[in-house]
């Protein structure tokens, strides 16, 4: 097997605070092959963005510490000198952020942004950089790129701005593109255009992509492999087919059950997860991070479950593997019954109150 492009082992990110150390990424391990798309899913606070930012040395907080190992083409990223990292960022590894307006400087033209991305890493004449910038704009599907080069970001629509940011990321043909919620701020028709663009770029340039998102549908469209995170840890990992067709972890069940479908028969209630995601990593439970919200919680869950499974499809859960399919059904029904009964009783009290 060829060496993976990126190999992350036991990555930990800890923030020191007045109330103690908050471990927001907890022993995260994954690897990414050449030309592969990895989807990282989880809710807010699951550590999906901060883990990827820590790889690039983008966490500048003096109270943060990053431990573990992340090898990119055999070079260790954790603890790499700033100058060396700066050289890598934007050339070999590029990142696209969620909000295209804050990724662009309003006082410079789109062309300036693109030539800057090029000239930061290579000594190229301005004219050459400008020609390449036109090519990049054309490549991401901006009509009339020659003329648009001298426009300012505010003259572009949201979807076009996001395409400009992606074009900046692609300026130096990076081996790895990290896209953090690249379509969340966009309308569906624009989102579809941006997803098509990412798919085409991955195919034509053979770039690897880490796609960070909370949108399960986007991941199921684009990713080869999927990493589900909760409370700073990987709770399930596998190929797209494995994770979406045969999810093993109760959190993944809940995530999939929570999404209303546009192309499936309607259900009256969604099979969601009770409770809310942990508000702070300071109060993380000692064992399984998902235990406080899990319907199947039992004593063993006080201990940390290992990531285990068959082949590449692994999950961190103590439930007996052979019972999982049956338990998945029970989860949904049990939660629904309790909730319906509760609202029914409360509604009766409230309606009596109206008559009073």
């Amino acid at each position, binding site marked *: 097997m060829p060496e993976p492009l990126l190999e992350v082992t036991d990555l930990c990110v800890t923030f020191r605070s007045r109330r103690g150390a908050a471990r927001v990424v907890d022993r995260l391990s994954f690897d990414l092959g050449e030309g592969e798309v990895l989807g990282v899913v989880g809710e807010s606070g699951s550590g999906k963005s901060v883990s990827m930012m820590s790889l690039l040395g983008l966490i500048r907080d003096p109270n943060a510490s990053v431990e573990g190992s992340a090898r990119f083409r055999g070079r260790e990223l954790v603890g790499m000198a700033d100058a060396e990292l700066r050289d890598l960022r934007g050339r070999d590894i590029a990142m696209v952020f969620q909000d295209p307006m804050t990724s662009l400087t309003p006082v410079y033209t789109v062309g300036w942004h693109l030539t800057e991305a090029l000239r930061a890493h290579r000594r190229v004449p301005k004219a050459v950089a400008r020609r390449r910038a036109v090519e990049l704009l054309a490549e991401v599907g901006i009509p009339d790129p020659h003329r648009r080069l001298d426009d300012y970001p505010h003259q572009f629509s949201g979807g076009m701005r996001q395409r400009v940011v992606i074009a900046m990321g692609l300026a130096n043909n990076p081996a790895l593109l990290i896209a953090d919620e690249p379509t969340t701020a966009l309308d569906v028709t624009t989102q*579809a255009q941006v997803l098509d663009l990412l798919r085409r770029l991955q195919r034509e340039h053979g770039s690897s992509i880490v796609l960070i998102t909370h949108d399960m*549908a986007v991941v199921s*469209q684009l990713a080869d492999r999927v990493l589900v995170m909760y409370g700073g840890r990987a709770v399930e990992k596998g190929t797209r087919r494995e994770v979406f067709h045969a999810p093993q972890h109760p959190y993944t069940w809940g995530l999939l059950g*929570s999404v209303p479908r546009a192309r499936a028969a309607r259900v009256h209630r969604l099979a969601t997860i009770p409770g*809310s995601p942990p508000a702070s990593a300071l109060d993380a439970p000692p064992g399984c991070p998902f235990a406080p919200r899990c319907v199947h919680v039992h004593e063993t869950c006080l201990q940390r479950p290992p990531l285990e499974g068959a082949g590449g499809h692994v999950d961190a859960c103590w439930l007996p593997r052979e019972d999982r399919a049956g338990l998945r059904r029970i989860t949904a029904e049990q939660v629904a019954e309790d909730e319906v009964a509760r609202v029914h009783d409360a509604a009766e009290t409230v309606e009596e109150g*109206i008559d009073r």
Partner: protein
Amino acid sequence: MRTSTRSGTEVLLRANDVVKHFPVRGGLWHRGPRPVVHAVDGVSLEVRRGETLGVVGESGCGKSTLGRCLTRLTDLTSGTVEFTGRDVSRLSRSALRPLRRDVQLVFQDPYSSLNPRRRVGEVVAEPLEIHTSATAAQNRARVAELFELVGLSAGHLDRFPHEFSGGQRQRVGIARALANNPRLIVADEPVSALDVSIQAQVLNLFADLQDELGLTYVFIAHDLGVVRHVSDRIAVMYLGEVVEVADADPLYDAPGHPYTEALLSAAPEIDDGTGDVAPERIVLTGDVPNPVDKPSGCAFHPRCPYAQDRCRTERPLLTLAAPGRLTACHYPLLTAAGDQAPHAVTAGAT
């Protein structure tokens, strides 16, 4: 499965040709009449008692402004809004007070829709203080009951909004809307700011409350999955106009308007081995035109794959294209019998 018989045919709210234009400043050397944003441009709708009417469209299509017009949070430029048969579109502030009780709103952002300096118990009690003559103690007891109803602990009455998570805050917003036992709730993107699992909890709460209290909802959202999930009927908006109205399942299975078809085909769907495969995507070229300078004829014609000469000059009206289906298109994708017209591209969900 939700029964389709839940909603009757009694009309609770009716909008007739509602128009809302916002004047904007022209350039420094601008001459002639002041340009206007055509936020809502001739919308006619009815909301039936006990149903959920979904309003869907992309950002800038005027769906939020329509919600504000329906609730009289903003004055209409022209047209009328009738609530239980009575025209409320020209009523004065004081004459509107009964309407304010019967029609409530739930907003998108649970962070900015609650006063950060007031305890949540006070926030929910305020509508009671305005509309009832109950004592403070009675109001407090009622607020505690409402908290239980929306799934909050009555012990949290004296907390401030910042002590709650986004999902809990949205529950506070729902409790406030329910305080005076309203008949209609207009919810404007009530779940779009929430995490997926919390979003599902709040959607379930909306469904349970409707079952128990017989509420009528107008549910404004951009998420196509969410809209299908909550709605009995759906109105699709584009550039300030309603382009299609139909029952939820038929609309998704066989869209009648080319814009609906393109919008639905762009929605990504989870492939979990159970659902349908995505239909062929219809790629819309270009961006949504500027609502200051709307295209002539059909507003969708510059991006429509089926546009003909007639579409460039003549604005199509919302007409009955098939049973139970209103479509504003000269060449709808449905035959009069409700089958797909020969030029329709998508198979839809079958």
